[in-house]
């Protein structure tokens, strides 16, 4: 984990949450830019998990290793699954689905920041 990258991801995911809710409120399905933005959030998420995995491989040991690994893996599958689920039936709720996934990424990143404390 890199703190700055995590905060960037939190901000990006926050934008994706709001964007999804805005299009839902406007009764529109997510637009192309919105879907690309979600893909961008996913790329940053994957980069973050890879960096964390490299640090773990290099010997870093957080207090709750198993939980941390679970989060690092789980966090990267949210947006891809939501993306597929949102595109099967395209309407306002597609945006809500993307918002839910982005909120999950946001919450899990904040949790990872807390988990990323070296074991004594």
């Amino acid at each position, binding site marked *: 984990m890199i703190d700055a990258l995590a905060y960037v991801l939190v901000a990006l995911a926050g934008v994706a949450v709001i964007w999804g809710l805005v299009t839902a409120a406007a009764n529109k399905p997510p637009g192309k830019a919105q879907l690309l933005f979600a893909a961008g959030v996913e790329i940053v998420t994957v980069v973050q998990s890879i960096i964390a995995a490299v640090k773990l491989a290099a010997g870093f040991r957080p207090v709750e290793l198993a939980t941390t690994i679970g989060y690092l893996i789980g966090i990267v599958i949210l947006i891809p699954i939501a993306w597929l*689920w*949102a595109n099967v039936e395209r309407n306002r709720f597609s945006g*809500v689905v993307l918002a839910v996934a982005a909120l*999950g990424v946001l919450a899990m990143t904040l949790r990872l920041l807390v988990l990323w404390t070296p074991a004594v």
Partner: protein
Amino acid sequence: MTGVPTQPTGSTVRKTNSGAGRALVAVYGIFALAATARASVQLLTKFEQAPLAYLLSALAALIYIVATITLARGTRASRRLALVAIIIELVGVIVVGTLSVVEPQAFPRATVWSVYGIGYGFVPLVLPILGLAWLWHTRSVNS
């Protein structure tokens, strides 16, 4: 929270996996993932610390998985299973939530339902209510 099935989604046939139901399934899916991950870690690495709490974590995970799949399928048979799962979920979050407040020593380690799901923004308490409301909302067409 999002995905509140408060308004009709149009004149199309309403299935549990359509319209607002897709958002509901997304929330259930996240909780299925979160609860499963949490229960797996707890059961595999520290089961002896709090067997009751961790078995309840596993039960919660199973309930969320069943609810996610049955709501996502949206068939007549899956609706019934969804109803059973969501009722167990509601009872579970109320009973475990209340016990964890009244009798905290029985739950030395947190579960997804502890203190009515406070660790998850109380979504675990709201979710089964939304789920039941959604099953009720879609009942006439599909059951």
